[in-house]
């Protein structure tokens, strides 16, 4: 299991990366953390003519808050999700979810953006990107553009980026005190890709009703799954057990998961229903806590 030969580049600036990607187009591949790409190379399931290693492009290694959004550069490792105070306080969902992603050795190297670009249908970060309407800042030969999460994931391991494009940053909204969040997943072993995972973010209004609800699921379709019907069902409502049940049932309406080695379609649907409810409940519970805390402060 050794990789095929390739041309290797390790530019130091974004500009050089763009030039190289223009040159190689679909024959080239960005090498970020390598935690998904290198296994594919070792199995010879991928054999790009060139690898453009972005690990030396230090300008891509940042976590910033810009206009109320958290901007995570392409070199930020998944490990940083656990250690960064900014991320923990502004988007705790990311910090908590990191533990579901593989193991420390992988997270030390794998990048947040790389995971989103890889678009594995069972990966956690794409679900968060989809649920929170992340924006993907990509740069290509024709310059820069922003792709919305809903337009980003096309199908299994496929995004709407052009092969010559590079994603430089993902932008995620920061989550306020009245927003609660959760990531619930079932995986067979600790650190495995999810069989099914659901992420939820619930924001409460002054009346403790749901002002905003976001849900995305993985492991049930080729891209992170989101259903606006479910979200609309909850919005404006007071969170109740029966509402959660309704939402959970609605969530499985539109999915047609497949059966594979490790799970059946029916099992996935069942898990989707169960995890949706759990995630919503936990998110709502957290939102409520934040709400109470906030009120305590105001009083």
């Amino acid at each position, binding site marked *: 299991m050794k990789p095929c*030969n390739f*041309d290797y580049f390790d530019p130091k600036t974004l500009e050089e990366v763009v030039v190289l990607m223009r040159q190689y187009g679909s024959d080239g591949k960005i090498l970020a953390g390598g935690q998904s790409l*290198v296994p594919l190379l070792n199995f010879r399931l991928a054999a790009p003519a060139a690898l453009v290693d972005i690990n030396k492009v230090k300008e891509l290694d940042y976590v910033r808050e810009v206009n109320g959004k958290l901007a995570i550069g392409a070199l930020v490792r998944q*490990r940083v999700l656990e250690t960064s105070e900014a991320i923990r306080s502004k988007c705790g969902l990311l910090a908590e979810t990191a533990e579901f992603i593989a*193991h*420390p*050795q992988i997270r030390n*190297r794998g990048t947040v953006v790389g995971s989103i670009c890889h678009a594995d249908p069972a990966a956690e970060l794409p679900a968060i990107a989809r649920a929170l309407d992340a924006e993907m800042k990509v740069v290509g030969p024709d310059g820069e553009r922003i792709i919305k999460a809903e337009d980003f994931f096309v199908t299994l391991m496929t995004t709407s980026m052009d092969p010559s494009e590079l994603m430089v940053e993902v932008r995620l909204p920061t989550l306020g005190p009245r927003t609660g969040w959760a990531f619930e997943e079932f995986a067979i072993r600790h650190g495995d890709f999810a069989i099914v995972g659901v992420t939820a973010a619930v924001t409460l209004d002054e009346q403790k009703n749901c002002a905003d609800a976001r849900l995305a699921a993985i492991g049930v379709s080729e891209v992170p799954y989101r259903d606006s019907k479910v979200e609309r069902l909850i919005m404006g409502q007071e969170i109740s057990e029966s509402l959660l049940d309704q939402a959970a049932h609605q969530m499985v309406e539109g999915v047609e998961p497949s059966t594979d080695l490790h799970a059946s379609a029916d099992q996935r649907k069942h898990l989707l229903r169960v995890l949706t409810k759990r995630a919503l409940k936990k998110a709502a519970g957290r939102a409520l806590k934040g709400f109470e805390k906030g009120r305590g402060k105001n009083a």
Partner: protein
Amino acid sequence: MPDELRTIQVTVNGTKYDRQVRCRKLLSDFIREDLRLVGTHVGCEHGICGACTVLFNGQTIRSCLMFAVQADGAEITTVEGLARGGQLHPLQEAFWENHGVQCGYCTPGFLLTALELLQRNPNPTEEEVRIGIAGNICRCTGYQHIIESVLAAAAKMGAKTV
């Protein structure tokens, strides 16, 4: 297509090496074949077993999922770098005393993983140890003695720093 060669400089266990490598050579192969540091083992070459774990600029990584060229300028610690002056590292001692080793093939990876784990969390619970080493596979021990070894090492290392 002939392989492209690059010259890299790496520091491994405190020793500087200048070597020419082919760009597609995996870091694990480089450490074993070019540097002849054969304590780093290879068990899967797809990132799951953890046998190839080394410290890369102070953090654990899978050396089978990196290319040697990427290590240019880096500092690496392998299992050979743990004992100093013939004195076993407390972790190694703990593995010895608690029968944390059977065939020894997984051992280097576990040692380096446990080292990072204890640096981050010097006093872990058993459950935290289990989760912390879940990125490494051992086929011999059923993990029980390894877990006991890591807990014993935590006690030892804690005692030392006090």
